[in-house]
């Protein structure tokens, strides 16, 4: 096995929340040296969420679960950007870095003079990525929103729910999990380009645009046919039956998706060819779509007697697409995820043992994985300031008491 892909790559990260840190976690998972600039004066709001220890502010910021989970294998340096030397420290680290990533609102980096135009002068082949909700340009670029708003604006909320009722998802505010994947793609491509040509790049990602790009099929349909995708519950235009059905246990379900007429015949057979489904019009997709309420009801009455995992194996063996609905506890036990080593269990100073989750792809020759939970606030100040910026311990102590490294 060769070394991790990004071993030796130097990354400077500014910003907060989920979307920014997730995009650089793909790099740290492959060995990149990622330094996060933070400050106790304006902490990343993830450090204030879901804290385990809340007796002091310092403990709270170091024991926040979500921060620890989304910032694995990164280092933390505290720099007070309100201090007159704050921006200068960042500029010196930019000269060290190959890549700068930030996900602030578009006015923040210019306020500190840390634009790509300025930083490129210090480091001509710099790759820099910005990833905010709406992008760096345009009339609404300063609009402040979180993932819930991104999901609504990009059109994903509208298509999730029951017809005639309010939207109910998709769970997890899709822009927060989708946009980091595209940011990481663009960064990796820019680094590859730099390696081949010596040229840097500035990358401006709008989280909403990544979602709209993904939904190209809906946009094209709207533009070409003036047809709008609607909330359909679990139903599908091109597959039926296509729904979730109750199984034994409280709130336990199985998903069944019949894509072809052959699968329909196989499903009926597994159900013992019930009288209620004995109708030749159901042998075509059109007929099944027409009668799907009745078909759903019949399947649900049958499925409720089965354990969801047993029913899944039985149907899959018969050539019918089926999958048990997993909850968080099931995921930790899921044999396919565990076969792939999805969960990496690491010890955190305050959280104890926790499951950290790897991305969905494996590289046969480059390994990858996590070694350490997200850093404590300022955990790596001394290491970074002495080794990279050449400060002495006495200077660090003095500048810390002068409120620079806090």
């Amino acid at each position, binding site marked *: 096995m060769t070394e991790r892909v990004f071993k030796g790559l130097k990354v400077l990260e500014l910003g907060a929340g989920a979307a920014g840190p997730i995009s650089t976690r793909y790099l740290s998972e492959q060995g990149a040296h990622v330094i996060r600039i933070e400050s106790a004066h304006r902490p990343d709001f993830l450090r204030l969420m879901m804290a385990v220890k809340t007796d002091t502010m310092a403990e709270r910021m170091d024991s926040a679960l979500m921060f620890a989970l989304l910032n694995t294998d990164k280092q933390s340096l505290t720099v007070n950007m309100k201090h007159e030397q704050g921006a200068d420290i960042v500029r010196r680290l930019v000269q060290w870095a190959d890549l700068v990533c930030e996900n602030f609102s578009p006015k923040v980096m210019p306020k500190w003079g840390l634009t790509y135009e300025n930083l490129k002068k210090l480091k001509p082949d710099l790759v820099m990525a910005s990833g905010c909700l709406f992008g760096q340009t345009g009339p609404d670029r300063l609009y402040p929103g979180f993932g819930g708003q991104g999901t609504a604006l990009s059109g994903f909320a509208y298509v999730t729910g029951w017809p005639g009722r309010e939207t109910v998802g*998709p769970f997890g505010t899709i822009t927060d999990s989708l946009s980091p994947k595209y940011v990481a793609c663009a960064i*990796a491509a820019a680094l590859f380009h730099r390696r081949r040509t010596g040229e840097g790049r500035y990358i401006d990602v709008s989280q909403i645009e990544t979602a709209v*790009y993904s939904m190209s099929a809906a946009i094209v349909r709207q533009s070409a046919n003036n047809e709008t995708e609607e909330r359909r519950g679990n139903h599908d235009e091109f597959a039926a039956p296509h729904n979730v059905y109750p199984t034994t246990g409280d709130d336990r*379900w199985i998903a069944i998706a019949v894509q072809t007429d052959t699968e329909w015949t196989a499903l009926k057979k597994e159900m013992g060819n019930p009288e209620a489904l004995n109708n030749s019009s159901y042998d075509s997709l059109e007929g099944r779509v027409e009668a799907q309420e009745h078909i759903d009801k019949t399947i649900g009455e049958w499925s409720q007697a089965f354990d969801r995992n047993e029913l899944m194996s039985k149907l899959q063996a018969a050539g019918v697409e089926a999958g048990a*609905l*997993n909850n968080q506890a099931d995921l930790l036990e899921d044999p396919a995820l565990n076969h792939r080593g999805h969960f990496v269990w690491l010890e955190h100073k305050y959280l104890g043992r926790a499951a950290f989750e790897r*991305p969905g792809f494996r590289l046969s020759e480059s390994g990858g994985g996590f070694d350490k939970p997200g850093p404590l606030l300022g955990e790596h100040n001394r290491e970074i300031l002495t080794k990279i910026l050449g400060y002495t311990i006495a200077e660090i102590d003095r500048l810390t008491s002068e409120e620079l490294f806090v």
Partner: protein
Amino acid sequence: MLSGIRVLDLTCERGFLAGKILGDMGADVVKIEAPTGDAIRQRGPFLAGKEGPERSLPWLALNTSKRGITLDLDQPDGQDVFRTLAKQADIVLESFQPGLMKDRGLGYAALVADNPKLIYCAISPFGQDGPYSHYNAHDLVIVAMSGNLQMTGDPDRPPIRCTMPTSYYHAAPEAVLGIIMALYSREDSQRGQFVDVSMQETHTSTLLCHTGNYSVDGVINHRAGYRVGPSREVWKVKDGYISYGLRGGPTRVPNLVATVEYMDETGCAPEWLKNYNWKNYDVFSMTSEEIAPLEEAFGSFFETKTRAELFEESVKRRIMLAPCNDSAEVLAHRQLRSRDLFVTLDYPELGASIEHPNFFAKTTGNDVRIRGKAPKLGEHTDAVLQEAGISTEKVSALRQQGVI
């Protein structure tokens, strides 16, 4: 950024987007279809509702920036042609059931023996091996197994999926990321590698950190419909729905205060709300009795406004409120249009002009953009086979045999 990189794209609908991303970033992507054409060409929705292999809208949307050839990979001569192409390619990208390419003698091990620099990426529902690798699955089943489905929907109703196949959308950029990482490391090693993508695994990321949380606190979360935690997140307004949260914290309280000011200016803020003490406000520690009057006050205000009015004021006042847009509204959005997100492609042979999202990132090199329309069935077969050094006579023979 990916110029000069040759991709052989064998994907079905589960992987179209991955090939498109590579093509839109400048790679030379050759889409390979069976001579009968990809299944999606037979499935709608079709342009203007009229069936035809060149009229499938999902085909046109998700195969831009690709050239297209037909090749029967189940015939020995077709397999030979594929081996020739793979010798000259950088990347093979496929989304078949695991094992199918190996059964054809075209698995990674066979291809890499002839081309050690080859990168082979396989996208499958559950990965190339393991207990579920032989399971068949499309979006609904993948979303179920990823944990997302159980969490989406109303608490008193069955779980629900997004109408659009989100699991395909999550798998594609992770597959591309894996491929580019392999390209990057190939610069040193001069060797390719296998990129094994599990769609279930990529989609677990939609839970953000909820599974990790469970590993620490043992709390299983339940779907909460239009709520996030204890408070409403989706609200009815005059002409549809909006997304707006009553959550607190330093980043959100100023937006709550700004909303109350806006309400007050239109005469809709009750006295008690104007004097509300937002210091230390935390909705997660409040009872439903304490939250109810807030929801009542905000909700009855929102109902007097349209989505456009509310969004306009929200941009001005820095309020975190957003309309739940449908695809027509997304297409018309002034911010997206100001950034030239949409590009019009002309299809003169179909009598249509269609707008497509043009990029997922803006870069200083203008590196991400649609390079060309989705290919017609077999449109580039002759050109691609000729480039590969296959003689005109051989191409004619293959065509007669029905291999291409």
